[in-house]
């Protein structure tokens, strides 16, 4: 009863925030003399109008879901992994190199090999800041941001020099073999099963969070690390585990980006997903189910932007501005709830007593 109530209030606040964002966007459009109704109609029809649009939407959502999960798992345990972008790139290049170097393997060996390689690299990328944090208390927020740039340069070097596709103008690897690509979901629109991977990952993390000891320990650490330590939880070890799972997910994101839609690595392949994933997870309050919903809405905004530009001549970059403003609205929302919590708290206590 209580959880459904909580879920409903979370859902309404998310919907409310999105509506506020759309109204804000409409105001800007009116200000620059464009028709918001026409623009929003174009946005939805462009993002959801036909099957290939849906395929695009799925491709964007799957990467967003996975990348948001990678932030959420760590943040839930009180350790902030902002290095998703770099770790995804590490995973992606591993998948791409394994995907094109090995020729003639059957798909049931080749594809898992790609994903495994990507996960190993992702875990390596996340374990470094995790270890520094747990061992020496090096602030992981800074170290992960710095590692983003390091991994970007490292993968850019790999894609430009040792593993470069010489037939292409700039830093990409050659396309991966057919045996390293995810199976088709719908072949006619080139939709592969990446979205299923995303949904399964979200379900697994949901289960981990809510139905296991490990998830409970993470939650406790996230709420109060000192108390958890006092209660006998090995905070460092559990946070390290969270970072490993987070890195595994970023590696998986990279593998899905390469094997599920792009078929090759290029510089900054994780560009749109690293930080957007962080935003989605923040909006979702690190709840895996909310992450799925918000990823879809986010992707509608992003994919529909071009439609807005073509039909209503609203610059497509406006959606980026709106989504960035969204997170500010959210911090504002939390502030508003802090004000009202005082009164609400009393009501809740009374309810519990009854």
């Amino acid at each position, binding site marked *: 009863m209580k959880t459904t109530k909580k879920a409903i209030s979370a859902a309404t606040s998310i919907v409310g925030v999105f509506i506020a964002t759309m109204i804000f966007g409409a105001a800007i459009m009116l200000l620059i003399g464009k028709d918001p109704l026409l623009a929003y109609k174009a946005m939805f029809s462009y993002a959801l109008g036909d099957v290939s649009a849906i395929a695009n939407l799925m491709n964007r959502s799957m990467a967003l879901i996975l990348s948001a999960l990678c932030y959420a798992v760590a943040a839930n345990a009180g350790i902030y992994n902002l290095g998703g972008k770099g770790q995804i790139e590490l995973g992606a290049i591993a998948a791409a190199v394994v995907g094109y170097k090995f020729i003639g393997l059957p798909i049931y060996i080749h594809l898992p090999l790609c994903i495994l390689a990507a996960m190993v690299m992702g875990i390596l990328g996340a374990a470094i800041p995790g270890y520094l944090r747990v061992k*020496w208390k090096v*602030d992981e927020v*800074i*170290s992960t*941001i710095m590692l983003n740039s390091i991994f970007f340069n490292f993968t850019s*070097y790999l894609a430009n*020099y040792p593993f470069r596709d010489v037939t292409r103008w700039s830093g990409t690897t050659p396309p991966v073999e057919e045996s390293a690509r995810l199976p088709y979901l719908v072949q006619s629109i080139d939709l592969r099963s990446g979205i299923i991977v995303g949904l399964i990952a979200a379900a697994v993390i949901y289960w981990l969070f809510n139905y296991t000891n490990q998830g409970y320990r993470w939650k406790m650490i996230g709420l109060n690390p000192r108390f958890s330590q006092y209660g006998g939880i090995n905070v460092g070890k559990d946070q390290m585990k969270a970072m490993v799972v987070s890195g595994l997910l970023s590696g998986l994101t990279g593998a899905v980006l390469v094997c599920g839609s792009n078929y090759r690595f290029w510089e900054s392949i994780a560009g749109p997903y690293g930080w957007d994933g962080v935003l989605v997870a923040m909006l979702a309050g690190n709840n895996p189910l909310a992450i799925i919903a918000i990823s879809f809405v986010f992707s509608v905004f992003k994919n529909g932007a071009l439609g807005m530009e073509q039909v209503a001549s609203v610059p497509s970059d406006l959606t980026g501005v709106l*989504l960035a403003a969204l997170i*500010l609205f959210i*911090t504002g929302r939390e502030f508003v709830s802090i004000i009202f919590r005082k009164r609400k708290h009393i009501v809740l206590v009374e309810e519990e007593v009854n």
Partner: protein
Amino acid sequence: MNADFLLDVLGTGLRMATPFILAGLGGLISLSAGDLNISLEGFMLIGAFFAVLGSYLFESFVVGICFAVLATIIYGLLFGLFTIKLKADVFVVGIALNLLASEATVFFSRLFFNVRGSFSDPRIEGIPNIHIAFLDKIPVLDQLFNDHSAFVYLSWIMIFIFWFLIYRTPYGFYFRAAGEHPEALETTGIRVNKIRWIANIICSIMCGLAGAHLSLGYLKMFVDDMTAGRGFIALSAVIFGGSNPIIMAITSFLFGLAEGISLRIQNMGIPSQFTLMLPYITTILALIIRAVRKNKKIALLATIANTENKIESGN
């Protein structure tokens, strides 16, 4: 490798360090007042865009600089509103403001200039270079220190102004106290939040100047996301230098040099990615060294306390 090449790289390094120094000085004040502002990058980008806008509209670099500073101050007020007034998480707001700056400047350049990618125009007036006449006759120094953009010299002067501000004025003391012992400062009757607001505005102004230097210093154009991670490098220099402007500036010079070397060797066809990584690797190493030292200190204090306890219980 001849001397000319070396001097050229050093000179480029000096130039490249300027945005790091300017933004870094701002970040340093902000950090000593207790807020690690990770959105230096976004602030600089806003500054760079509005500098070009002002200079384009009025054909004057002075107006450009004013536009840049005003815009970043407004952006800084937004940062202050969320972090100081609404008490939101500094990192969350920082991330959001970085993204917002990147998206908003692209949107604005579509709106005002109707271009995407980059905008340049003969109407844009750049910040002039300064020629120091007496250096002409001294060969090495002339090559190194002459004919830089005015902001390069400004940044060097600023280092000492900030050093003076932090170590020789009461305000410097307040800034550091607000960061280290806010409660202690509050008991002396000085409002911590007021100090944080002042630090925040100084930080915004410095980032505005850094941004103006990026877009009007040598290039005279605005390019989407032209800060290209420089804000994070400035942040690295700040973390490295702590609250000391001189150490911060030396670090910035080294980072500028790394960038200068990257530029040169890239032209020669050597991979520049590894030199480009240097600032970030140095920062992580600095963080580790500092953390290890701190942990040792804590361990030492613990053993001292232990032995004292033992002595006491022995009695």
